[in-house]
Structures are given as structure tokens and as C-alpha cells.
């Protein structure tokens, strides 16, 4: 991407308004999960028995019509005599101002050093909490869990795509360049594997991960499972590109001057498909994120105590849950936001990098 092609690409990319919006959202999301521990007011794991399913805490600014700054009332928990449903009533007397850089539960920042500073919060009180997105079944802060869960959802897709693209590019390049029976067998295998429905196949693969594994290895297992299907789409299209590039005269010229096959692939074929690889990766990350969410939603993916957006949604499976606690669906919005941004960026990249539609539009 040297020379003024980089300038042309940057200019074309920024003409694509949606692409810019996508990039900004993605930067914010990845910054969010980078500083998740610091941003989250509570530790995502600890439960609060008397705040189960509490609504998102309302933040008030004016106390008896005087501007006071952000503060929160204490909450008393009572049971509705008729329906026995738990109800939370605001106790006007207890006022807890929302402070910044407040001391909260201790955590290891990036696993490096211990600290307990959180960006914002109301401190430790047993009768008041600052649950921006409300609490879940065990009274854990959904906002903190969304931040920490984002780490899994946004990275699993990324790594899975990376693995899929690397495998797909290599298999596709060799199958396209050498042709013959290698090509036929690879294409037949891909055709068969693609005839399986994606999510059931993912579920079946997810079942291969022994339940005894700790949650981190399960995470890596899920990443491998996700990339298992992704690489075939990449291989199929890279093969198509390499087949057409192989006939291009500058590749023939390289053969005539005595260049080795391996060097031709690495020096000529791969650099000319890099632009495409970038586009296909951005466009296949959404598929991976959706895949991970679906598997975790069904409980076959990420295991407790680790969490991901899909797993968070698992509590909102039945209609009754949603009707009584609609805020449990908020993690879904984050999934849409991330996937949408990746789609915008991928589309803008394709228009900028590959105006002649070598990439089939999807």
C-alpha cells in the first residue's frame, strides 16, 4: 500500500460517511473494554442478594427543585402483597451523591497492579446501588458485566477471524495456484462442509469442548470453533482471485525470469490479495460475533464465571423474564452496535480498496 494508492484509499474511505461512524463507534467500544475494570463501578462477579432484578437506578439532578448535581436515592425492597413480585421503592431521605474517581472493590488493572479506583460510583452502601443497566437474577451490576462481557465478545470474533483468514488465505492460494487434484479435493471438502447449517455445526463443535475445562480455555476453544467454519468462505474466494491473478502477465513474467513458485506466491500473489483480505476480514468479524453470541446464548459457549454479551442475554430467554425485566435485553443492543459498525467499516473499506467489485457483494 505504498505510494499514492494509500492516499487514494484514505480519501475514498473518508468519503464513505457510514464508514467513519463505524470506525468511531469501534474505537469507543474497544477503548471501553480496554479500561473495563476502571470504568465499571462494581466488580462484575459479586452478587447482592437484596438487589436481584432491580431496575436501572434513576439518577436525579434536582433535590426539592434545587440543582444539586447527580445523586441517587436509597432503595427499600418490598414484596407486593397481591402478586408477591419484588418491588423497589425509592427512599427519599437517603441521598447518595454520584462521585468520580471513587474507591470501590479492588481489582488488578490489566492484571498488573492492584487498585480500587473506579471512574464513578456512589461507594459501598448496603441499601443503595448505582446499577445503570439494572441488576440480574443474582443482583449483579449489568453495566459492569456488559463492560467485562464485551472483552470476550469483541475479541473472540477478532481472533477467530484472524485464524480463519490466515488458514483460508493459505489453503485458497495453494489450491488456486497449483490447481489439479489438490484443488478438486479442497473444493469438494469445502462444498460438503458448507452444506451443513452453520449454527448447529457450531453447537456440535462447541460440544467437543470438555465441560471440565477452565473458562479461559473454553474461550480459546470457542475461538477455534468459530474459525473452523469461517476459513472455508475465505478459501473459496481467495482461490477465485488467485486463479485469475495466476493468468496475469506480471505473474507469467516472474516465471520467465526464473522466480520460484514460493516466491511468486509470497512476492506477487499475496500482496495483490492483501487489500481483499482486509475487506473480507472486516466483513467476517460480524459473523463471528453473532456466532459466539448464539452459542453462548444457548449455554454451550462461554462458561461462568467468564461472561459475554451472548451469555448475558441467556437470562432473557423466556417471555416472562423480558416482560418483567426488559433491561436484561440491553447487552443485545451492544451486539448490534458492534456488528453494525464492523459492517459499515467493511463496506466502506471495500468501496475504497476494491472499486472494481472483485469482492462479491454481500
Amino acid at each position, binding site marked *: 500500500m505504498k505510494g499514492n*494508492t494509500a492516499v487514494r484509499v484514505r480519501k475514498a474511505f473518508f468519503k464513505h460517511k457510514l464508514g467513519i461512524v463505524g470506525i468511531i463507534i469501534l474505537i469507543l467500544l474497544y477503548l471501553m473494554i480496554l479500561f473495563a475494570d476502571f470504568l465499571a463501578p462494581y466488580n462484575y462477579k459479586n452478587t447482592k442478594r437484596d438487589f436481584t432484578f432491580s431496575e436501572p437506578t434513576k439518577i436525579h439532578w434536582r433535590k426539592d427543585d434545587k440543582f444539586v448535581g447527580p445523586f441517587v436515592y436509597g432503595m427499600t425492597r418490598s414484596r407486593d402483597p397481591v402478586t408477591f413480585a419484588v418491588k423497589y421503592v425509592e427512599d427519599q431521605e437517603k441521598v447518595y451523591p454520584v462521585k468520580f474517581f471513587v474507591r470501590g472493590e479492588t481489582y488488578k488493572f490489566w492484571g498488573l497492579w492492584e487498585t480500587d479506583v473506579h471512574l464513578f460510583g456512589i461507594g459501598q452502601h448496603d441499601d443503595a446501588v448505582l446499577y445503570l443497566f439494572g441488576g440480574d437474577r443474582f443482583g449483579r451490576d449489568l453495566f459492569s458485566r456488559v463492560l467485562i462481557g464485551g472483552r470476550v465478545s469483541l475479541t473472540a470474533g477478532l481472533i477467530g477471524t484472524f485464524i480463519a483468514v490466515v488458514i483460508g488465505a493459505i489453503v485458497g492460494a495453494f489450491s488456486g495456484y497449483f490447481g489439479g487434484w489438490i484443488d478438486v479435493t479442497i473444493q469438494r471438502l469445502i462444498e460438503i462442509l458448507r452444506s451443513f447449517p452453520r449454527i448447529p455445526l457450531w453447537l456440535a463443535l462447541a460440544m467437543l469442548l470438555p465441560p471440565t475445562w477452565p473458562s479461559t480455555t473454553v474461550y480459546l476453544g470457542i475461538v477455534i470453533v468459530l474459525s473452523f467454519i469461517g476459513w472455508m468462505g475465505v478459501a473459496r474466494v481467495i482461490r477465485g482471485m488467485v486463479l485469475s491473478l495466476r493468468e496475469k*502477465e*506480471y505473474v507469467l513474467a516472474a516465471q520467465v525470469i526464473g522466480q520460484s513458485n514460493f516466491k511468486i506466491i509470497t512476492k506477487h500473489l499475496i500482496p495483490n490479495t492483501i487489500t481483499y483480505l482486509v475487506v473480507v476480514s472486516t466483513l467476517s468479524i460480524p459473523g463471528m460475533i453473532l456466532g459466539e453470541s448464539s452459542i453462548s446464548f444457548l449455554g454451550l459457549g462461554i462458561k461462568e464465571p467468564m461472561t459475554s454479551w451472548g451469555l448475558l442475554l441467556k437470562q432473557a430467554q423466556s417471555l416472562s423474564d423480558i416482560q418483567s425485566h426488559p433491561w436484561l435485553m440491553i447487552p443485545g443492543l451492544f451486539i448490534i452496535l458492534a456488528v453494525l459498525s464492523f459492517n459499515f467499516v467493511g463496506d466502506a473499506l471495500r468501496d475504497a480498496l476494491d472499486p472494481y467489485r472483485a469482492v462479491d457483494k454481500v
Partner: protein
Amino acid sequence: MILKGTNIKKYFPIRKGVFLQTAGYVKALEQVDFELNEHETLGVVGESGCGKTTLGRVITLIYSATKGHLAYTTPDHHTSHIDKTINKHDLKRYRRDMQMVFQDPFSSLDPRMTIGDILREPLDIHQIYPNRNERDEYIEYLLSRVGLYPEYAIRYPHEFSGGQRQRISIARAIALKPRAIVCDEPTSALDVSVQSQIINLLQELKEQERMAYFFISHDLDLVHHISDRIMVMYLGSVMEEGSAYEVFNHASHPYTRVLMKSIPHWDPKQRKLGSVHLKGEPPSPINPPKGCPFNTRCPKAYDRCAREMPTLKRLNNHHSVACWLYTD
């Protein structure tokens, strides 16, 4: 003598069905013999589908011949047989001595590499100049040799016109000081005014570098202008072959005559296209006609033409033709 090809045949299999079995052949080259001598330009002329480009690619080992063989003779008269069994050393030597210039200036240069990198690649492969500045100096010499400014070395192919890119291709071809260059229609994708510049450059280089050319083109006038010997091809076989003067002025094969008459004559006063009477369309190379490939369209064809394939017969020691009109 540099290169000798004896009954070269090249069939491309047509793959069909789910397991890609071979369902037929595109018979690109049927029967071709040729000799390329030291410091000589052998012109190959024919219409599209006659196999001239395939022949060029068989010679430069882009394709491997289905049958027949190529014999390459080094300056110290050591002849080696060019096919799959060639040893690494002879192949490397052959690769150095036999270069190629391609037809489409817009796809014969890697868009991702600077001009300097493109010219550096052959030098690195054959380790011509181990130290850097000696090599860069040579690259600047090559660029000025083909009429381009040395500063162009850092620029990219898309910043050049068709004519300039063809000059870069030629610079790449002469970088290894080859003994012969296969030129596959080097000027047909260029504008008229730029064509003659490239032709002059090729002729000038041939004299100074004492090279041989295997010059492929569909333009008989151009082939006559640049070649010492001409070979006329039709549907994968050689129809007529001889010195440029003989073939051009005493065209004997009916196809060569039709070819000569079909070329527009730049003189509005003597319009001659009206007198061309050639029937039908060129047959498909998938199932060529039996016997002489031209018999289906030849105004002078008779029964023997449709039965037997004529072989090249010598009319004199500078001219031979493959046609049953000339039996001994």
C-alpha cells in the same frame, strides 16, 4: 543456432463434470517446427486462434509442450534438451538467456512494486550484482537505455502511459543480457504514434546487444518490417516459412495470399479490399477440420486437401510451404 523446436504439439484439456474429467481438447498447437538462429529475428504471423501466443509461451516454459521437444544450444555449442527432466543448472541458464516481452502493458507490471523493484527482481534471482549501488547504477543505466529518466525508478506502474510501461517491460527483458527475447505482440495494445517508437527501440537494442527476437504479431506489415525470417501460422500449424523477402514478395500459400490482400492498402485511389473473396469463418480449434486446416476456406482446395495434412516442402533454400498445390 540458439533454439530448435521439432514437431511441437500443445493440447489444452477441457475439464467437465463434477470430478473435472477431460471431455475434449483445445488443439492450440498441432505441428510446429522452427529454428531460432543467433542475432536473427524470426517473425511469427497469424490470426487469433492460430497458436502463435501459445508457441511463445511454450518456448519460455510458461506452458510445457504436450509432444515434440526443444533443443537449446549454448554459445559454447553445448546442446541441452528443454523439458521436465532439465536439470536445475541448465534451466537457470535457459531462464537467463531466454526472456519475454508481453502484449498488455497494463497487466505485465506488478502494480504493487516500484519500477526499481521490478527491474531488481531478475538481478536478485540470478545474483548478478551482489552489492547494492552497483546494482542500482545498472538499473539507472537500463532505464536510460530504453529512453526513460532514471528518477522513474521510485514510481509505480499506474503513473505511466502504455508506451512507457512497454519500455519498462523491455528494460526488464534486457536486464539479464539475454541471447533471445520472445516478443508477444508488444505493440498491438499501443496507439499508432507510439508503436513506431517501440519498434525502433527493439531494433536498436537488437543491433547493439546482438540479440535474437522471436517476434509474434497478427500484423503482416509489421512482421515483414522487423523480421529476417517469417513463419505464417494457421490453426496450430505452420503454413509457410522462409526469408522475409521470399514470403512477403512471393507468397505461395493461398492463406498467406489472402492475408496479404486483406491488409488495407493506405491508398484511397487503389481500393483493393473488394477483391478479397474468402469464404466462411475460422473453424474452432476444439475440432479442427481433417487434412489441411485451411481447406474449409481455401479458394483452391481440392479433394486431397481435405484428406491429408500437407508437410512443409522446400520451394528453394529460403522458402518452404505446406500446401498440396506444390507437390514434387
